[in-house]
């Protein structure tokens, strides 16, 4: 029963990743794509968590943290890129 639930959760998460991927490709504007990527990142975090439970291991907890950081940084830099045109501004001197 438990295993079935886990599997269901994993499948549902995968399907939601697929749907978000569609948005990444289709998404008429740039922000649509960035948001979709962020969603994918969060879903992957959840998926890794589910998989860790499934495999009953603690080895992937760092992965979850890392994806969280990366998704955050990625979304921030994309946003800045869309807003300002550059990611890292040069010093003004």
């Amino acid at each position, binding site marked *: 029963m438990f295993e079935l639930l886990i599997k269901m959760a994993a499948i549902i998460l995968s399907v939601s990743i697929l749907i978000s991927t569609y948005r990444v490709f289709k998404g008429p504007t740039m922000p649509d794509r960035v948001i979709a990527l962020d969603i994918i990142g969060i879903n992957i975090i959840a998926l890794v968590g589910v998989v860790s439970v499934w495999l009953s*291991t603690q080895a992937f907890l*760092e992965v979850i943290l890392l994806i969280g950081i990366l998704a955050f940084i990625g979304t921030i830099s994309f946003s800045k890129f869309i807003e300002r045109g550059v990611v890292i501004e040069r010093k003004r001197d």
Partner: protein
Amino acid sequence: MSILHLVVLAPFIFAIFVPFLHKYLRHIHTGWFVFIVPVLLFSYLVQFIQPVMNGQHIHKVLPWMPSIGVSFNVYVDGLGLLFSLLITGIGALVVLYSIYYLSKEKEALNSFYVYLLMFMGAMLGVVLSDNLIVLYVFWELTSLASFLLIAYWYHREKSRYGAQKSMLITVSGGFAMLAGFVSLYLITDTFSIREIIAQAPDITGHALFLPAMLLILAGAFTKSAQFPFHIWLPDAMEAPTPVSAYLHSATMVKAGIYLVARMTPIFSGQAEWFWIISLFGIVTLFWGSFSAVKQTDLKSILAFSTVSQLGMIMCLLGLGSAAVHFGYEEGSFYSVAVVAAVFHLINHATFKGSLFMVVGIVDHETGTRDIRKLGGLMTLMPITFTLAVIGAFSMAGLPPFNGFLSKEMFFTGVLNASTLDIFNMETWTYLFPVLAWIASVFTFIYSMVLVFRTFTGQFQPEKLETKPHEAPLGMLIPPVILASLVLIIGFFPNLLSKSIIEPATASILPTLLGPENSYFKVDIYFWHGFNAELFMTMGVIGVGTLMFIGLHRWSGVYDLFPKRLALNHFYDQGLVQLERLSEKVTRIHMTGFIRDYLVYIFAFFILLLLGSLYTFNAFTYDFEHTADIGIFEVILSLVMVAGALGVVFARKRITAIISIGVVGYVLALFFVVFRAPDLALTQLVVETVSVALFLLCFYHLPVLKVEKNTVPFKLTNLIISVGVGLTVTLIALSANATRLFEPISEYFIEASYKEAGGKNMVNVILVDFRGFDTLLEILVLGIAALGVYTLVKLRLARRDEA
């Protein structure tokens, strides 16, 4: 190391000192010091005549590279002694002549004598070494020295052209010869000529026997200027005249003759050997003498005459090889051709050497070698005229000079050949005598042209650059010696027959000698009675005289011969076309586009790997070891495939970059599913960074050239990419199916905590069990970082602008 080895090496050793002698003893002509070397060597070699006459052979061993069977063995028998006497004897005369020919002040004497000594040593090495590889080394040294000597006046374009031509032709021949030698080694397992000859009867059936023969003959024919490789010799006449006299008449061009003579005991008795040598020889004889008549330059006449005489010697060697088919009794009837070849070899060296020196004197004293400007020099240069008459009449085969004797023997040889009943000879019976006779007529004509156009007729002082007068005494001594040899051999030919010719013939035809007759009985007489040969000579003289007198009436026949069919034209066009063709081929495949090179690389990848999978029948599949496939992996795979397709079919670059990111993250998920947490961590970070870098590149694409097109479709690319994918998949499947032994991972599982004190096995392997790889990968990253920094910061090209 014996004294005989020193004989070969002495010229090389002395050559080292020549530049110093030239530099510090400037007031003495350097040639005088060099003159000592050939004189000493000649007088040393003369003492071997006695033992060689008695059938003794001197063999001295000096290991050079014993592990591969190469040793510098010096072997003196009749043939080697004859050649080494020629080389040192004529070498001494040529050095003496060059002392008066080359000016002490104007010429670079140091390089001249270094090259000449190098040539002399190399030539002695060719004729005295018993080892094929050593022979080849010296052979190439003669080519090199000849190249340097032809281009002695390197500021002239024609000299450089002639040097390049001779180099290309002789070195390609030499290379073929090396291949032949190696084939002989493969057959007999030895490089020693003695041992190969000892095995000669057993090797004729070997598959490499015929290729070896042809390749060695290619070397001999190119070196000895046989048709159609003779074209380099007339162009080599741009060399200084002493060089022409020494290299291109007396010694180097006879290296091929030597090789054929030396190889006769191995290959003779084969129909191919007989036919190739005889036919090439007779054609060269005819073509050389025919072409010599139309030349207007004295040295060109002599060059073509050399070609023709070499053809004659070669033809005689070929005809003489038939004697091997018969025993001693009947064989001696045919072996007269070999005796004639050896005899004419000596005669040709004497009269051709003197004729070249005569031409050099004429050139030196009048400033031209063009027979259209010369004439009437007889009274001005009486000694030179006498020498020219002796040399030219001997060349034409007139009595009482030595050329007459060898020409008679030549006729005997070709007449005997027409009675041969082996090698399908009977159908070609009259080919040899007829061609030989016609060639002799032409020989007679150009010999007469040489003498009478230069020394008789109208004296034309207005066309000459300097006022002609008789040459200095020193310049006359060497041709006088050679011309008196012509006369001495002419009158007393049997001086040579016992001492030189018989041992030389014995080493060319060793199988004909039994225990009771250890040498050939050679008797050369002027008078044989009224026989066919004498009538042939009389015919030559009669027809030749008539044709010489009427030369202007029929010389138009040479204009009929189209220039485009000339062999030089073929050579020149061949070089040009070769260059053009290779350039074209290079241009076709070296397009400068990386995509084309990638196509080549991947096409060969597919061809080689799929080809070997197919030929070795190596494709196997076996699903016994595969794990079960869960629904989760299937979904991930589908996402990954979708991402990959997204890269390929993306309409915009940004889509492609994001799709690559998708592929990378899914890969990280795969690492998660397949229980590789460290890999997953790294993969996520690296993927993020590289996607960011891609975005950076995308942003910096130049504004004007932005192409937001789809990838253009190309069928080749599709085929190749599908092929690569298929190949890799097939190989992966086969590799997975073939498990030859257990993996070693069990050891790491056991040992990582016990031996290394770590529970994370991946990290223990990275820094402990296999720390070296990690170290170097750190190095790679360091280099990459420094490289990026340098590329960004270092802008040498724009420094000037800034």
